[in-house]
């Protein structure tokens, strides 16, 4: 059995490396095929940008350095090799455009904590509450509560979340003025006033977070409900009931736990999408994370930042799928095959 697990792990690791590598390569070459050669237009834009806070000479030096480091005046294949070398060995993406002399990777690292914080908390909360509610209405199936919540879930799960975001902004930010709009905290609090700072962060993150939760919450409710109903038909449950176990114990130990396993896989998957899932919501709420950075870079055609964001997104999805696949044999004996 050990041997089989080893083979499985090694196979899985190899395919992970292949997928990440292939995705990055495809992204790299795809953008060379796009009409209007991104790199050329990027260099051109940089040359015209010079100036509002930099000497022309400095700009030229940076551009020259960039061209040399990434072999931009050579053929695409050499460029590709240099790109990979810089990315893997030096974690270097080249200068950004949005904050000119600053390297793209620094810009991305600055925004990363906000996105990870916002998205991981929203995803987790949505998962926990959604599963609990789903299991509950599955347990109480065919009652009035079940029907109402299920119909609500069916309806809400079909509304595109960005529409909801717009409505939230309108109602809570502009009409009722309960929540502030834009930024991660208000500019007039400093980290020294620790409580005000935390409250400010929370109040800025609330609406984006609720919007993001809405995007996945009802899906969890629906799937957990049907999983629960499936478990309810199992023989071991009938036996446990016949043993005279308490209802609450039946629910928590026998129903909830068994129905939850597929959902754990789902949680892992949606954790992978935390980088790419937030672009629209962050942009709408002007939240300073990867998503807003990505759409700003789209607007200015900031090639290096875009490449960095895409690599990050591919990496996070592939890695979370890998983690699920590596953990699954330890959690679920059926996958292990013994």
């Amino acid at each position, binding site marked *: 059995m050990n041997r089989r697990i080893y083979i499985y792990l090694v196979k899985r690791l190899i395919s992970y490396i292949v*997928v990440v590598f292939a995705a990055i390569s495809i992204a790299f070459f795809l953008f060379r095929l796009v009409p209007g050669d991104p790199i050329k237009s990027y260099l051109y834009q940089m040359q015209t940008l010079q100036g509002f806070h930099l000497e022309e000479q400095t700009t030229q030096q940076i551009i020259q350095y960039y061209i040399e480091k990434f072999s931009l005046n050579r053929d695409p294949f050499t460029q590709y090799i240099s790109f990979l070398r810089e990315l893997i060995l030096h974690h270097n993406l080249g200068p950004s455009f949005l904050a000119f002399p600053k390297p793209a990777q620094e810009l991305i690292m600055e925004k990363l904590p906000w996105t990870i914080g916002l998205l991981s908390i929203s995803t987790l909360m949505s998962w926990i509450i959604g599963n609990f509610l789903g299991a509950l209405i599955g347990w109480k199936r065919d009652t009035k509560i079940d029907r109402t919540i*299920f119909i609500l879930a069916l309806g809400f799960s079909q509304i595109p979340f960005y529409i909801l975001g717009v409505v939230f902004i309108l109602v809570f930010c502009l009409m009722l003025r309960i929540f502030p709009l834009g930024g991660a905290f208000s500019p007039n609090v400093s980290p020294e006033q620790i409580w005000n700072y935390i409250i400010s962060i929370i109040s800025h993150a609330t609406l984006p977070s609720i919007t993001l939760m809405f995007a996945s919450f009802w899906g969890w409710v629906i799937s957990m409900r049907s999983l629960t109903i499936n478990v309810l038909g199992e023989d071991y449950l009938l036996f446990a009931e016949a043993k005279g176990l308490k209802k609450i114990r039946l629910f928590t130990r026998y129903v909830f736990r068994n129905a939850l396993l597929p959902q754990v896989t789902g949680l892992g998957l949606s954790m992978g999408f935390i980088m790419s899932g937030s672009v629209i919501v962050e942009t709408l709420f002007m939240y300073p994370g990867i998503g807003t950075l990505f759409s700003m870079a789209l607007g200015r055609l900031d090639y290096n930042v875009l490449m960095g964001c895409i690599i990050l997104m591919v990496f996070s999805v*592939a890695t979370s799928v890998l983690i699920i696949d590596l953990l699954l044999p330890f959690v679920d004996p059926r996958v292990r095959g013994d």
Partner: protein
Amino acid sequence: MLASLKSKIKRIKRLNFKVRIGLIMFLSLLVIATIFSYIDTQIRLKGVDPTTPWIAERFLPPSPQHPLGTSQNGADVLGSMLVALRNTLIIGIISGTITTVIATFLGFLSAYKGGVYDYIIRNVTDFMLVVPSWPILAVMAAYIRKIDVIGISLILSIFNWSWAARTIRSQVLSLKEKPYVDLARVSGLGDMEIVFKELMVNLLPYIVVSYANSITNAILAETGLRLIGVGPAELPTLGFLLQMYLVAGFLTTRVYVAALIVALIAMTFLSLNFINMGLEEIYNPRLKKITGM
């Protein structure tokens, strides 16, 4: 087989309630977006494209000439909305069609031919499902400046076919083991004949469901793209208009305009989702049993 087909047609005839409501909504949106928009342009604006900038002063309040006023570049808001609705629906339909054709072809090829075809297509499909395709789509749309309806539909389809292909593949896999396919093969029918005469007919429900799904996904992706400001301005769609009016501050100054756009987008999705849910209920009665609804 004929009998089963007949009963299927019967079922479609008394289409369930959800499909009917969805279809009525979708068709009326289409009518508003095409016929009504055409008449409105001809009579009210005397044939001038309502999205033309500087058709009138900027930020005009509502008046008989411009029932919803004008936008920040002096285009007629009502007319623009109708044109945008039309573009959105057309992009959805074209992209849905392309996606379904690609997915059906690949699904059939993969499941029916098997072997190397299956290996390649299955792995590419899995790869496409894992890669976050929406951001890549956004970057491509940002770089390609000149693009028409067909072009954008094509790009949307390229990033959209994997789910549908996967569903169709698994259905073909289970169908091709059925006795009547063996019978057809023994009686000397060619691959093409089997695919079109025996398999396609029985797969039609799944293809229809994935068609409706693909339209929804295409519109969802397109609207999302436009909402973050990506895509050509010459091709206004609902997402583009919403983004433009958000920038113009219509959420505070003219709430009804923003609300109307949001309502149109919501209506589009609602109608498509009604159709989707209804079709799934018709063709997948097991689902009904599981969900109990």
